[in-house]
């Protein structure tokens, strides 16, 4: 269980102004749920995700994973950024292996091979990043996050740079992985249809200062048909909620 308790995060800009990126944010993320963060640009979604990852620290408040405070990155928490962030000088295998540098060689090789198989990139194990398409590169990034077997997978707009077909394929793919591996997913997205088709809960944030506006529960069973009335009407509701801000 990932608990966000009364978090504030303020930035001081070089000219002395204070930006209240997050203000009084509390949220409990349950085990094995998929939760989406949506909201207008600049409302603090990425900031919140970075706090959850341990890359950044709250000005006030706490982030706790199973009762322990998250204050630095840990293997239990995996992160997929908006862009793949592959190291261009390493092959696909080594790019994933970078997440397991302290693991014994043979175990590392096995785990990397297994995760590449899972994201369907076995054939490209020896390719360099420049030989990959955008969707393949993002799959490598997902593999790299999963190879450490995190209990939480954080994703910051992971599919936003992809065309809609590749995007849907990858969404389904992540759902499959999620079903097999039983990790928790926190997904930042601008795509409300993505949020509605994937999530158990959608957290709507509003900016300036960044706060949680409402949390929408979605009960229907997965996989959900993107074109179904239920999904489309939820999407409309969320759109309306966002425009109210």
């Amino acid at each position, binding site marked *: 269980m990932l608990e966000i308790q009364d978090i504030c995060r303020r930035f001081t800009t070089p000219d002395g102004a204070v930006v209240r990126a997050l203000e009084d944010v509390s949220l409990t993320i349950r085990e094995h749920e998929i939760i989406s963060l949506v909201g207008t640009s600049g409302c603090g979604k990425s900031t919140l995700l970075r706090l959850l990852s341990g890359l950044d620290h709250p000005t006030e408040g706490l982030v706790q994973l199973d009762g322990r405070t998250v204050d630095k990155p*840990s293997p239990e928490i995996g992160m997929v950024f908006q862009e793949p962030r592959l190291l261009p*000088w390493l092959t696909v295998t080594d790019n994933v292996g970078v997440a397991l540098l302290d693991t014994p060689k043979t175990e590392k090789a096995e785990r990397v091979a297994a995760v590449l198989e899972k994201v369907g990139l076995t054939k490209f194990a020896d390719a360099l990043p*420049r*030989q990959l398409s955008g969707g393949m590169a993002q799959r490598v990034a997902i593999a790299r996050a999963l190879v450490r077997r995190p209990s939480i997978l954080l994703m910051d707009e992971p599919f936003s740079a992809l065309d809609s077909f590749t995007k849907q394929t990858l969404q389904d793919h992540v759902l499959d992985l999620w079903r097999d591996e039983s990790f928790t997913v926190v997904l930042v997205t601008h795509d409300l249809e993505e949020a509605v088709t994937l999530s158990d809960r959608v957290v709507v944030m509003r900016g300036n200062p960044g706060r949680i506006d409402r949390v929408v529960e979605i009960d229907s069973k997965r996989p959900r048909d993107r074109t179904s009335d239920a999904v489309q009407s939820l999407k409309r509701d969320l759109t309306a909620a966002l425009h109210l801000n």
Partner: protein
Amino acid sequence: MAVLDDIKETIGLRSDHTTGGAASRGSSLLPGRGTLLGFALPLGLVALWQVASATGFADPQLLPAPGEVLGEIVALWQSGDLVEHIAVTMGRVAGGFLWGAVAATVLGILTGTSTWARQFLDPTIQALKAVPSLAWVPLFILWFGIFEDSKLMLIAVGVFFPVYLNLMTAIRDVDRKLIELARVNGLSRWQTVRWVLLPATLPAYVTGLRGGLALGWMFVVAAELMGASEGLGFLMIDGQMTGRPAIIIGALILFAIAGQITDKLLWLATRKPLAWQDTLDSLEGGRNNA
């Protein structure tokens, strides 16, 4: 047509890359069509030179015939003097290059990684850079004498700046996002250097080294013209004093060849770790760079 051929060649090499064979890139070591094309202009100039000499258009006192230049070089070679001169000059370049590159690497890493070191050292280094390097000559001679030390010092100064500037800038410009990635994946400080910083800065560092080497060759000439009893530069002065233009031209050509060879060696030594680069050079198998 030539353009079309170039494109085909590029595409051909490109598909080599996608099959990922480092071995296939090795073929560019052999002189390909592109390399041969590069020889066309110099050979043409030599032919023109020969014609000018044979027809008496060129004054042999100023521009002796190619055969005569070659003859002088061969004679020097046979006497063993030439090997000696080349070895001395190469030794000076190597020594100066080593000192300059090592100093630049240490300082570049310092100012690149530490804000404090940069604020403390970089302004001074930048100010020193503004001094035209040859202006150091009188001071170095005064300090280190007219023999080897002042020469090495001068060459080292020439080598230092391109290496230092390239390395410092490259370290500072390493994508912060990649550093963050290293943090997320729990890389230690040393692991971050090994897996991220080093490979990311290598291309610019090699560019700096090659630029430094070129300046090293430039400055060895200056150092040897200043006063030396051995070396290719001395050979040129000697040819000038004794009125033998063939020697001057011969030394000139040898400088060009030696400079090319050392640059090529540096390029070869660093080619493999840089093969990942997604640049025009890599599309063309690095041939343009050679």
